């Protein structure tokens, strides 16, 4: 308190103790902790009695029990009906990660394009971008998912008559069937050549940067790199005797067989998630660009840069600092929103684990706890990564 400087303060000890902010703070905190502990204890004991009364098992033993149901999409994790519930969890996690990463990538691309388009001098383009943003973000995502999934489904040709895309494979209501590459003997050289090309490009770009800083001379890094990445594997391909062939999907009674398949549930969800999130990212990008003072653009024009390079080299690098924090939120939102997959049969974590597994085992507490903690961990990892990226992009203050 303010009167603490007077040492002779033994007059009213009772009042002093209660009025001391430290004591009061401690009391409030102890009360709060007590309340929380009491609440948690109450919930746990209630849950324990209820579970015992209903004869529902508890604990994580169910993770080793055979699941017994099928899952259609599992590109990386081996899964069969005989697999355990624990494996179901990993299948779900894998599918959540795939849709999130693909969605984040696509949403960023669309978002940047639309955000820049909104600031375009071209009236049609900027109005189109405006309409896109206002239409996308003012309709619930779940409705978008239904619209995309069920209307995309209705538009595609049926299973018996897939649309033939020639060398690109087949397209029908059950998905897109791309040719599947079959790697023959010696195919490893193609991969090796690709890696060499990528490493060489990286080295080249750092060398070119150093040279430009030192002498001001530019080097066409981009085209050289593209050339290397295309040409080197091609040379390896012919040199090793053309070991690559493609398995083309073929039509059969129940739709095409063979090839690599992209499922319509995945496509529908991906399009809905990325176009919806892109409308938010577009606004973030626009705000970020507008936050850069107009003087920067004018100065860069005065230096003789055209509007393309001005945007690429002057405005966007500065705007990134404003853009990244809200963008992180959108990435997190997209990851969390991917859980709406449950509505259209894409087997993500919520669908196969918090849905089917929960139903079959009845162990709601364990299953939901695991699911929520997984999403928390994903959020945390994304945040950490974006924080690191933000620190890297931040203005280096001298």
């Amino acid at each position, binding site marked *: 308190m303010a009167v603490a400087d007077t040492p002779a303060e033994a007059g009213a000890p009772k009042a002093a103790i209660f009025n001391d902010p430290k004591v009061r703070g401690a009391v*409030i905190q102890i009360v709060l902790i007590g309340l929380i502990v009491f609440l948690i204890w109450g919930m746990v004991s209630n849950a324990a009695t*209820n579970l015992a*009364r*209903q*004869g*529902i*098992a508890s604990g994580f033993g169910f993770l080793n029990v055979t699941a*017994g*149901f*099928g*899952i*259609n999409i599992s590109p990386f994790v081996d899964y069969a*009906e005989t697999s355990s519930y624990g494996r179901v969890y990993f299948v779900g996690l894998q599918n959540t990660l795939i849709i999130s990463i693909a969605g984040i990538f696509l949403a960023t691309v669309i978002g940047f394009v639309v955000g820049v388009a909104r600031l375009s001098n071209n009236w049609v383009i900027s109005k189109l971008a405006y309409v896109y943003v206002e239409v996308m973000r003012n309709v619930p995502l779940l409705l978008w998912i239904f619209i995309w999934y*069920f209307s995309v*489904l*209705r538009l595609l040709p*049926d*299973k*018996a008559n897939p649309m033939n895309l020639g060398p690109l494979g087949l397209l029908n*209501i*059950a998905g897109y069937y791309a040719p599947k590459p079959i790697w023959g003997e010696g195919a490893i050289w193609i991969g090796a050549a690709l890696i060499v090309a990528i490493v060489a490009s990286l080295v080249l770009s750092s060398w070119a940067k150093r040279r430009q800083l030192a002498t001001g001379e530019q080097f066409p890094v981009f085209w050289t790199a593209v050339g290397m990445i295309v040409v080197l594997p091609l040379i390896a391909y012919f040199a090793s005797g053309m070991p690559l062939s493609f398995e083309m999907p073929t039509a*059969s*009674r*129940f*739709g095409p*067989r063979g090839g690599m398949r992209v499922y*319509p*549930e995945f496509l529908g969800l991906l399009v809905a998630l990325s176009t919806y999130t892109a409308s938010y990212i577009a606004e973030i990008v626009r705000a970020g660009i507008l936050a850069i003072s107009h003087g920067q653009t004018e100065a860069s024009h005065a230096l003789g840069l055209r509007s393309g390079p001005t945007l690429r080299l002057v405005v966007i690098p500065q705007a990134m600092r404003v853009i990244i924090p809200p963008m992180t939120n959108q990435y997190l939102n997209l990851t969390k929103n991917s859980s709406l997959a*449950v*509505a*259209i*049969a894409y*087997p993500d974590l919520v*669908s196969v684990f918090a*849905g*089917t597994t*929960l*139903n*079959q085992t*009845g162990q*709601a507490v364990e299953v939901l706890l695991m699911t929520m903690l997984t999403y928390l961990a994903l959020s945390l990892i994304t945040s950490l990564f974006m924080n690191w990226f933000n620190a890297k992009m931040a203005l280096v203050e001298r």
Partner: protein
Amino acid sequence: MTKKILSAALGLTVAGLLASGASAATLDDVKAKGFVQCGVSQGLPGFSNPDAQGNWTGIDVDLCKAVAAAVFGDASKVKFTPLSAKERFTALQSGEVDVLSRNTTWTMGRDTSLGLNFAGVNYYDGQGFMVRKSLGVKSALELSGASVCTNTGTTTELNVADYFRANKMEYEIVAFEKADEVVSAYDAGRCDVYTTDQSGLYAQRLKLTNPDEHVVLPEIISKEPLGPVVRQGDDQWFNIVKWTHFAMINAEELGVSKANAEEMKGSDNPEIKRLLGVEGEFGAAIGLSNDWAYQIVSQVGNYAEVFNANVGPDTPLAIARGTNALWSAGGLQYAPPIR
């Protein structure tokens, strides 16, 4: 601090207010509140389906109405709670509903480990397959490589996995959260096969664009006895629901129907007399009035009437009695006698 305490008190009070006593005697609770709370599906034609005015109809709905008729002598004293497959058992366990009549399959696991009791089987069902006629499939064994639409959280998903594995056939499962979405996806052509309980297939077929283009395959791959469920540990209520169902079957067997229930009271047949409460004190034994079965039959009807009105040959579902015929007609519906 005052504010916090107040809000805590409010929370406590609200919790207290909403506490509805799901104590041991369900019958007393039901009588006290004046209606039966019945858990039904979220919309399955023929079993429990709301119309545009929000009135519920179906076999499962009629069973609840019959329970209300037995308890109150008034079949309209019943309220319906639509439940998803996921939450149905929780709703019953926690006392949110008094009886769950939601085309629920009687399995050993559910009967023994969920704290529930199945009070009978009001529809003998089995899982079947529906395909497009244009595919030219005659048997489920020709379905290798097909994609199968179904909904999650039911025994269906497990049965179909077992069936295809047992017959060494490949398949692709597409599992949706809600039945409506399964129908939409199947109708759009996403899947070759739609699988669920056979009665459900007939019911859902009505929702398709062109019902005539689809055919239900003859194979039945599982036993699905569907029936009403009550909480374990309340034998009186269990008996009421069980005997409500039996009374409807006995009424059909004895030829007592909605139309002739009144005149049948004067029948000389002692079995009919016992059923309609003219003789004996059977109602009192389960805590009801003696004319409980009379109220059921006169207000809701006997089993045949309920079946024919909701799913029978003259309804859009057009399901034959089949295994649901009386035992005397070669079916499985059999009720112990009232005596």
